[in-house]
């Protein structure tokens, strides 16, 4: 018994005197009071009165003094109010969307009815992961719902579920699509192992998705998976193959569908197959379909898999 008590005391002492982990340097290494201040006592539309956008504003490439006296990195990702997607009709009445190159970031029951974090049309429900669901942003769609402003520089995108968690974060909210191998929510299926699928069905799929060489082609998540971010970006995606997507790039006016390549509604002469294609076939056939061996429609006949 005495021996057991000694072991227990030893363990407790080790816990108390063990070296502390060195706290990682934060991306936003500012004084707390820079952001944690009262701006307005009443609820305001987050798309407009957005603390993050005070710095992440178009035209702004500023640096700021950190608490340790150093300089922050220059602001690169900037957002205007109209960058938020209106693909789900989330905007307030009478407001014309802008470039719509980013995920909507101002969903809250308090401000605009029906624009909270549950959007059935987007297959989106409240996320399951606890990392999403604490603090002020719970139940809302805001920057800080997905981004942790206090994250370390090892997680430069400040993702709530950690660096490289983009796809997992998509699926945690957009749960209806989180179904492997079938057309979840009536859309394109996700698939866990595309190379194996393609090898088993060479008449239908290319062995390697055709990335067209540039400007945001299809990418397999983790090298094998067909998932959300194979085709979509979360920010700085304009559904236009003619532009390079990204925070420092010059983007086109998007359609809010946040596709890396051309969306179905974007007319692009590059999509015209040899011999010409009618508008109908162009409309139905985004070049995202290139992984499929696909026969274009001919006069009066719909296209089909070969």
């Amino acid at each position, binding site marked *: 018994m005495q021996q057991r008590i000694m072991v227990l005391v030893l363990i407790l002492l080790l816990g108390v005197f063990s070296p502390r982990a060195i706290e990682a340097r934060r991306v936003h290494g500012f004084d707390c009071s820079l952001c944690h201040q009262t701006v307005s006592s009443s609820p305001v539309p987050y798309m*407009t009165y957005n603390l993050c956008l005070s710095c992440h504003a178009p035209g702004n490439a500023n640096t700021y003094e950190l608490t340790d006296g150093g300089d922050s990195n220059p602001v690169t990702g900037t957002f205007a109010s109209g960058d938020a997607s209106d693909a789900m009709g989330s905007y307030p009445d009478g407001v014309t969307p802008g470039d719509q190159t980013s995920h909507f970031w101002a969903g809250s029951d308090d401000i605009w009815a029906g624009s909270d974090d549950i959007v059935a049309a987007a297959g989106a429900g409240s996320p399951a992961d606890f990392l999403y669901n604490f603090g002020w942003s719970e139940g809302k769609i805001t920057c800080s719902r997905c981004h942790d402003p206090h994250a370390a520089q090892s997680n430069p995108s400040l993702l709530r579920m950690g660096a490289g968690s983009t796809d997992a974060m998509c699926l945690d909210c957009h749960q209806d699509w989180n179904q492997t191998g079938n057309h979840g929510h009536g859309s394109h299926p996700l698939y866990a192992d595309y190379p194996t699928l393609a090898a088993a069905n060479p008449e239908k799929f290319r062995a390697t998705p055709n990335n067209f060489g540039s400007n945001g082609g299809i990418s397999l998540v983790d090298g094998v998976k067909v998932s959300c971010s194979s085709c979509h970006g979360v920010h700085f995606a304009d559904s236009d193959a003619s532009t390079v997507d990204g925070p420092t790039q010059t983007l086109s006016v998007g359609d809010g569908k946040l596709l890396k390549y051309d969306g179905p509604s974007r007319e692009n002469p590059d999509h015209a197959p040899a011999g010409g294609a009618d508008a109908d076939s162009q409309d139905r056939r985004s070049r995202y379909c290139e992984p499929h061996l696909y026969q274009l429609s001919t006069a009066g006949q719909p296209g089909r898999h070969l």
Partner: protein
Amino acid sequence: MLWPVKERFVLTVIALILAVIWPSSEAYCAVPVVESLGQLHEELSVPVRLDVDEAGNLYVADARRKAIYRFDRYGALAQSYTAVTVSGGGLAVSPDGSRLYAACGDAVAILAGDSGELLGYLGSGQGEFASAGYIDLDSVGYIFVADTQDRIVKVYDPQGVFAYPITNPQSATGKFPSIFALAVDTAGGELYVADSMRSSGSAPKMEVFDLSGQLQRTLSADNAFGPVLPFFGGISFDESGRGYFLDTSCSEIRVLTLPQTFSLRHQDSGGFGRWVDAAYDGSNKRLFVANEGGWIEIFGIDGGSNPSPPVVASNSPPSLPHPLSPSDGAEVTAGQPELTFQNSADADGDSLSYQVRLLQGTEPVAEYEVSSVGEETGSVLVDGVLEENRQYVWSVQASDGTDTSGWSETFSFYVNAEPEAPGVPALLAPADSALCVGQDSLSWTAVSDPDPADSVHHYVVELSAERSFAALVLTQECTGTSVVLADLNDYPLLEDGQTYYWRVRAVDQYELSSASSDIASFRYDTAILTVFADMPAARVYLGGNYAYSGRFVGEAPVEIRDLAPGACSVVVESPGFEPYLAQVQLAVGESVQVHAKLTTALVPLTFRAHALKADGATILLPGDAAPFPVDFDNDGLIDLLCGDSSGVLTLYHGVRNKKKQIAFDAAAVLELPLIYGASPFVVDWDNDGRKDLLIGAGDGTVRLYLNEGTEAVPHFTEGSYLQSQGGPLAVDGAAAPAVVDFDGDGDKDLVVGCGCGALLLYDNSGSDAAPQLAAARVLLTRDGPVVPFFTDWNSDGNKDLLLGTTAGIDLYHRRADGSFTAAKKLSTGQFPAANQSLHLFALDLNGQRGKDLIVGNSVGELFVLSARKFKPAASFWSAMRKQAKKSQLTRKQEKRLKKAIRKRKYRRVLALVKAFQRKTRQSSSLR
């Protein structure tokens, strides 16, 4: 002079009191009245930086479009600057608008305000800044640029050469904690640098420097601008000594009466987008605020307003004049026409002049100035003689001295001062002296009329038997350039074997005729069939048989020209006589005559039946024997076509036996599909001179097999279903068709006996050559299948109905008015057996005792019912009486004939008739 101490004290107190109660100079700057004047949206996506020149032009840097836009003082988009890719970090414009300074990442570009071309860069150009941000100018043209990454201010002289930096005096590095905005108060000669960084060592504030960079004062964001101002945005100043400071986080304007008295907090109404920059327009007292949501807010300050564009005095142009005469497309008969137009109206009441232009095609001919016009119309006389037969176009426009109406619509006219006849046609065919039949065409070239508005109205074809055309055989007007000989109105006047000469002339609508063409000749030599009958007014048909007379061609004697070579059947009918049927063979260019010897119509009274044999053996078909005697090969002998329940169509060729009577040879099967319950009817359905085949079927349909062979050697098509009202004709039960001109309108109608007992009429709503069958009409209904056959049983000139039923053969006489008498059962003795459906056919098989009946029954047997007793038909006597009245017999012969008729002395009458007929034949002539 020194004041005593007491007075000095009093003066001091007064001065202090005055100092306290007398308002400072700041207090004279009233709180601005801010009023929304609207928004600018055009072309903007994300406007982030603004500046205004002295004239009130607004310059906007758009961070998404990477361009600068200039809006004039009235708010209209006036210019786009795209020579460089701007970042939107900063923008400034010289007061006169001649130069723009635009942040482009690590450089500040200098652009020409008028042309937009790139003039150069500040300092060393690219790389001059870590990141160029806010830019502003002082009153002498020095340029102040915030480097927002190095967080210092760089100052450049008006030539763009770096002059000196302005740094943070409170920092060892000289860096500001942040630079959220920068602006120069040109009136006060001070530089404002906004720092929103909040930390333990720093609080958000506005640092105010003199233009050399000496810090003058610090305005705390926590209390100098009213409530806390968390994040600075753009800054601007008005001419009244007030500064406008934006709070980007809440889209607010904080106004300070300079140097540091807070006077107003103006908030956005709570809309979309953030306010990020401001620029004051002193010329119109307006404050522009950039909303990065995509537009510019415009605020009037202390009554400032948007200027209205100057109103330019306008002149209303005259309305369009309208050409009147010559009207469009008209023909003028003068070489110098007068051009008349409808005057224009002018809203300003200006006096108008007119310009008239005359062209030939697109080539100008003349142009006239008309200054004096009437009240309603003006005109001008063409001063030169225009070319004959040419088309001209003209139009007119009005002018009020300042503006013109534009040219009116264009009218055209032709000049035709001298009417001319059409050109002379040239003959094309037939070749001179060619041999022609009726189907050959005369053709000639089309000609035109030299008068532009005239045209050839018709051609006149003239034929003469003499080259001199001393006497014309015929003349005919034709609208086309050819005519078929047979279509000439007086075609019958052409004589077979005669040489004719022909010529053509063209006539215009005014009856001006061209000269006649050259003359050509042809020899007319065609096949002519002439049919005579020994009774006057006998009706002649072609392509018929005993069941259907065929195509009516006239009353005997009749001449039919241009028949196709080959076999042709001729049917002659006359009341009181049996039908006469003959076969003729026509050859090219040969004429044939048929003399129809009509025999007295005899009415059978009783019948004697015997089985029909072929090749010496009694015919027995599988069932439902349906006989149709017809001269199938046009050899002059009746053949027997039979349908039956098996679907086979069997043909028994007619031969003459030793007694020179009709007999039938061995069976031959027609090459046709099996049609179960076939009931044939032979008729030239499309009047092409070849026998076709209708076949009623057991399924109620009637099928048509058109003959693609010849009349004598038929070859049938694959067949089709007869249509009625858009669908196949189909009756209940087996169909037995019979063709008859039921309504006497000259075309063939169809009557179908049905297995269900109905007798249906399908009236022909088309033509005789292309029948279109209307909806069925029920003529009668009986119990059990009925099979019709139409024949003039009593030879009165009307087709009577024989109806085969399961109860025997019924006879319905047809009256002259088209109605039928009640049914009368034919007395056929023990035949046929009861309860058998019957197909029947009536004809005078042996030419001796009137009509015989050929009957098929459901067992498949075929019988001939020959007349055992007979008598002359009443119609015969009637015909004789009629002829006796107008006969050419001698008075004695006529008297004897009438007496014999009265006493029904048939043999005597017959002898007299033969004499009469001989005389008729001798005297008949063609009509």
